[in-house]
């Protein structure tokens, strides 16, 4: 019969408790410090006007390149105005694309972090709760084996007791009936029908010491 497992044998080791506590502290710190910042970044990625700044810069670059040195000859050119318009359109397009790229990256970074955050919470805490479990399990298994050994020994003692008792009961002594006596479970009788109740007589009866 196996001994029942004891819950105290399966309690967390000190290392496991420290690990879980540290993980929980880090989690609380993250939620209080970084999670709000990530939500701020989310809102900024939706509302930040990156495009205006870049378009302004693109316009300034165009004008600086094409109109910083005006001359009389330029007033006579039929194509110069068209060139400025085309260049301005082209630069604005570049600015628009750059702004879109920045905005998309901001947004995907926020989402990637938010999604990674959920995944990390899943795997991190799981690891924390498993740390040092093997030590606790080893200790529990050892205790379980000791308990089972005790039960096994108790079974052997009980078996020996039962065997000896039955052996005692099978002893007969004395003359024929009605003066013949039988042993009881705890007390055998010798061939003469004497009850072996004292320790000395029992030792002599058992012949353990060659008596």
């Amino acid at each position, binding site marked *: *019969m*196996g001994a029942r497992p004891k819950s105290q044998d399966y309690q967390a080791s000190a290392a*496991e408790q420290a690990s879980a*506590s540290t993980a*929980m502290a880090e*989690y*609380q710190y993250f939620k*209080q*410090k970084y999670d*709000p*910042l990530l*939500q*701020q970044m*989310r809102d900024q990625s939706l509302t930040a006007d990156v*495009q205006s700044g870049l378009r302004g810069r693109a316009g300034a670059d165009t*004008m600086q390149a094409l109109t910083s040195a*005006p001359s009389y000859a*330029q007033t*006579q*050119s*039929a*194509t110069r*105005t*068209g060139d*400025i*318009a*085309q260049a*301005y*359109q*082209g630069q*604005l*397009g570049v600015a*628009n*694309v750059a702004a*879109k*790229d920045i905005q998309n990256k901001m*947004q*995907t970074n*926020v*989402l*990637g972090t*938010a*999604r990674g955050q*959920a*995944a990390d919470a*899943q*795997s991190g*805490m799981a690891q*924390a*709760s498993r740390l040092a479990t093997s030590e606790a399990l080893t200790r529990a298994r050892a205790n379980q084996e000791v308990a089972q050994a005790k*039960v*096994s020994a108790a079974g052997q003692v*009980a*078996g020996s007791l*039962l*065997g*000896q008792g*039955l*052996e005692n009961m*099978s002893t007969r002594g004395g003359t024929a009936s009605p003066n013949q006596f039988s042993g009881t479970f705890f007390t055998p009788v010798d061939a003469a029908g004497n009850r072996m109740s004292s320790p000395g007589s029992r030792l002599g009866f058992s012949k353990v010491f060659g008596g």
Partner: protein
Amino acid sequence: MSNLAYMDTESLAERGLSTAGIPTNTLPTVNNPDQAFANITRQEYLDYVKNYRGFEEGLLSKAQTDTSLIDQAREDVGTAQGLAGGIASRTASRYGAALTPAQIQQQQLMLQRANTLGGVQSVNDARIAQREANTGLLADLINIGQGVNRSSQSQLGSAAGDAMSRQNAFTQAKAASKAQTYSTIGSLGSMAIMALAF
């Protein structure tokens, strides 16, 4: 504004976590890591749904329907023409250039033609850029989604493995207990038989 103003204190309290401040020299006691883990996992998902689900769906929609670059390029055609015309006019005024009506008409025609051609090119470039931007955004989103999917499947596989291990351990424990019981009974029985035989 303080960062704490953005704190989701309600959800922290729901998780049984302290909102009194950041502990600096003490660690929280986690009596039941399994339960803490379960609570955090559940709450993290609810936080994601509350704070980022709409944001994510907006990005997915944007990656498939955004035409803002093309729209902006169309708007810029008119802006560029007005700006270039203004520059020509101011330069002429600054130098006191007297252009003949034929010159003015020719300049206007050239500006209009160049602006139209530039606009067509701009819009076409914007179409290509828009497609690239949308494709890039969608690819990034798919990568994120695939990462989440991979992580979720791994998590589910781990849960399934744990469940199987528990089931196996339970079966083995039952078998071991039964074997131990039979062994003890057998030992007692065999002793009894030996004694009776004596």
